[in-house]
């Protein structure tokens, strides 16, 4: 698999974008956006990751096989985080039966 030779200028341009996004995300951390601080930080991190993956790692020129493996990896990571958080968020929705919270061990006649 021979990747085309990408001009040096492209790599430098991507690097400059990455620096810009780093400064942006650092700046946003000093502005109160409420819950959107986390959203903004993750969105910027995700954009930086896309730039690195597509350009530095050259995935835009990669075979379909590599792309499938990569997407599958992220899909599984999303499942891991979504189901774990889903579990923790919903645990308190249905209260546990009273009998479960008895501190005294059940007595057997």
């Amino acid at each position, binding site marked *: *698999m*021979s*990747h085309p*030779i*990408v001009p*040096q200028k492209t*790599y*430098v341009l*991507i*690097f400059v974008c*990455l*620096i810009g996004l*780093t*400064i942006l*995300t*650092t700046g*946003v*951390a*000093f*502005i*109160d956006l409420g819950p959107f*601080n*986390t959203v903004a*930080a*993750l969105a*910027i*991190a995700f954009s*930086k*990751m896309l730039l*690195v*993956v597509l*350009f*530095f*790692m050259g995935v835009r020129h*990669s*075979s379909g*096989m*590599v792309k499938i*493996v*990569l997407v*599958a*990896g*992220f899909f*599984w*990571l999303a499942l*891991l*985080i979504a189901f*774990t*958080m889903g579990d*923790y*968020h919903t645990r308190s929705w249905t209260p546990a039966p009273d009998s479960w919270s008895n501190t005294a061990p059940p007595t057997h006649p």
Partner: protein
Amino acid sequence: MTDAEAHAQHAGVAHQFEDLEQQQEADFLGIWVFLVTEIMFFGGLFASYAIYRWLYFAAFQGGSHILDIRLGAANTIVLLGSSLTMALSVRSAQTGNRRALVLFLVSTMILGGIFLGVKAYEYNQKFVEHVVPGLDWAPEGETLARLAPGGLNHAEMYFIFYFAMTGLHAVHMIIGMGLLLWLVLRARKDSFTTSYFAPVEVVGLYWHFVDIVWIFLFPLLYLIGGRY
């Protein structure tokens, strides 16, 4: 023609492969499958971080405020720079410019070394501030005032994540530096050609992956301090 001669014709092709192209496809698929396992490896930490950040929100905010945001941002830029020189290393290998290849590989190592140096300084600061869980946990003064609102035990959890995540990342960096050194030695012996340089590309992919982990660690650890 003997086997040895046939092999010499295709320098760098292992005997189980038909040709260079097939070998390169296998190389790329191999490193990507490995990187996906690494995504899951770090993913476990990111998932547990997500749970505790949610459960101990105030403590994580206090803990993050203790970190030096300037060092974190500077290190991010250093690491992004090392990714640039790594990408340029691969480009130099593609164009067969051995001098530039060695130069960019060494630059990548130097930038990686700077990153680890700053990280070591930050770890030392944590001992100075007594915020090392298990070993030296006795925050006082201003540090204590920052951490107290979220609960000291919960703040300790933040620093456990800080050390576990940055520590695992640093271990990956050190392994990457070793791989880069190996590439430099091989490049100096002239073992790469314009058609055979897969090791440079494979190590490059690993290095960029480690960079991506840091791209997420920086906001999740340094930027959640509520510094407004």
